[in-house]
């Protein structure tokens, strides 16, 4: 996405960058940050976020108003996303995978593609499904491998596909 990300108005207000002490206010602020973070990573198609890096990004550091959200604040948001099922710690408190689309949602997209291309009963490699020219236009094209694997796991659970590996190759059979 070459389009620049447009921040909501609240991102330009200093109090947004101070974690509020009063409970109700705090919860509303958290809600706003979660939405913003998801929009941001969705826009830039980010799947993994390193906290030490992102603390300097325009998302958490508004240079115009000279305010930044502390590392503690960022952890506060990520913990909430994890709690909601929108994220998972890759390394606790350091790296987090954000599912701006849940594995189940990805699973749906992948399965829909399979149906639309009459792939039931056939087998394809992970590579073909994820990185080949055939899927260039798909949303899940070059999706973060860990997220992709999770999506496949969901399909397995839903008994819509089976994943197996042989000789370092991973294959997927749609059922």
């Amino acid at each position, binding site marked *: 996405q070459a389009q620049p990300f447009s921040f909501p108005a609240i991102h330009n207000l*200093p109090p947004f960058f101070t974690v509020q002490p009063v409970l109700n*206010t705090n919860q509303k602020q958290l809600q706003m940050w979660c939405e913003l973070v998801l929009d941001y990573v969705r826009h830039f198609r980010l799947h993994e976020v390193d906290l030490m890096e992102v603390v300097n990004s325009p998302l958490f550091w508004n240079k115009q108003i000279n305010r930044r959200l502390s590392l503690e604040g960022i952890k506060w948001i990520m913990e909430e996303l994890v709690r909601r099922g929108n994220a998972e710690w890759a390394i606790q408190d350091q790296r987090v995978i954000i599912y701006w689309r849940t594995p189940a949602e990805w699973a749906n997209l992948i399965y829909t593609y399979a149906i639309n291309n009459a792939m039931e009963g056939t087998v394809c490699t992970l590579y073909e499904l994820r990185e080949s020219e055939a899927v260039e236009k798909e949303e899940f094209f070059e999706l973060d491998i860990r997220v992709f694997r999770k999506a496949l796991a969901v399909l397995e659970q839903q008994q819509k596909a089976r994943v197996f590996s042989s000789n370092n190759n991973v294959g997927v059979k749609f059922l």
Partner: protein
Amino acid sequence: ENKKGCSMDDLPLLPSGRPIMLTGEVEVLVVQKVQMEDLEGLLFRLTTHRVLLQRADYTKQIHLQNIDKLEAEPHGWFSKSNILKFHLRNTTILQFSFFSVDRDLVFQRLSKTMQKKSWVQELPSNVMTTNKGANFSTTSAGIGGIIRRQEEKHEKTNQSLSQAFADLSALMDNAKEMVLLAQKLKANHSNKEEDDVNDFMLNMGLESPVSKSTAGNLFHVELSRQLCDFLQVPLSRNTGILPLTEVYSIYNRARGTELISPEDLYRACLLFEQLQLPLTLRRFDSGLLCVQSDLYSDQVMLDYIDELVKSNKFPLTASSFASLKNLTMSLANYYLLKAEEREMLCRDESFEGLLFYPNIFV
């Protein structure tokens, strides 16, 4: 209403329950548990001008000039009498019994006070008279003459003041004169700004300070009531709340002599609720003690903050808010945090300090 009751007038009171004093009237003695005829539990207040009787349902005054003579019942062989009779000019006789204090002490003070006849209107003695009918000479004419006369007046005033202050008991004797002087000076300054008048009044002192010698063990009760009256003006200038330290200094400054101790002040403040006065002694979490007028609850201050929010005069710091509303820093902080708690405000913490904004999250 008994017949003897009809020989006395009703006594007008201030909102705190203290009686309204006459011009130049000063308290001399306050005694509780006094019985008059068949009325028990009266508060008996002797002033330079009157005897004031108070109880929850009863307030009367007897002007000293209406007392023809006093009769102290003689002591018996085995017991002292506590009875004193007033023979009034209208031939009524009122019998008083004193249960909490020596009857003879009351008799003594009463006699002395009646002798002085403080209520007799004299010309304000040698302080303010101009010399009428003096031989005219050019030295008293023109601007120079006016200045000279002013200087003479000031000389006399100074003399009067230093003589009075030389001896405190003499001061009490001169009390009436002092009070008149204070009032005259106040009247002369009535054209200046209100602030000056108030300051001047404070400087000249209260007219009839409650003291341990006049009120005895009622001291804290009386002090509590007087504080209530005294603090009306200062409180109204500070959105109804003052730190106790502030109350201590302005009140003592106004008293001038016979200063009260912090302990006395504290004890008096503890009585507000019991005496049903419209003041409250508040202790904040920080340990700060304040006197707050019941007319100005926290809500008033919070409403003010609400107004500020709506007219967008933000962001606020504790110090800017303190100067806006004439509060101490700890009070200003308290109110801002309270408003934050009520979700009216949110905070911005940075190297610039702690600032408060209207709550952008709701």
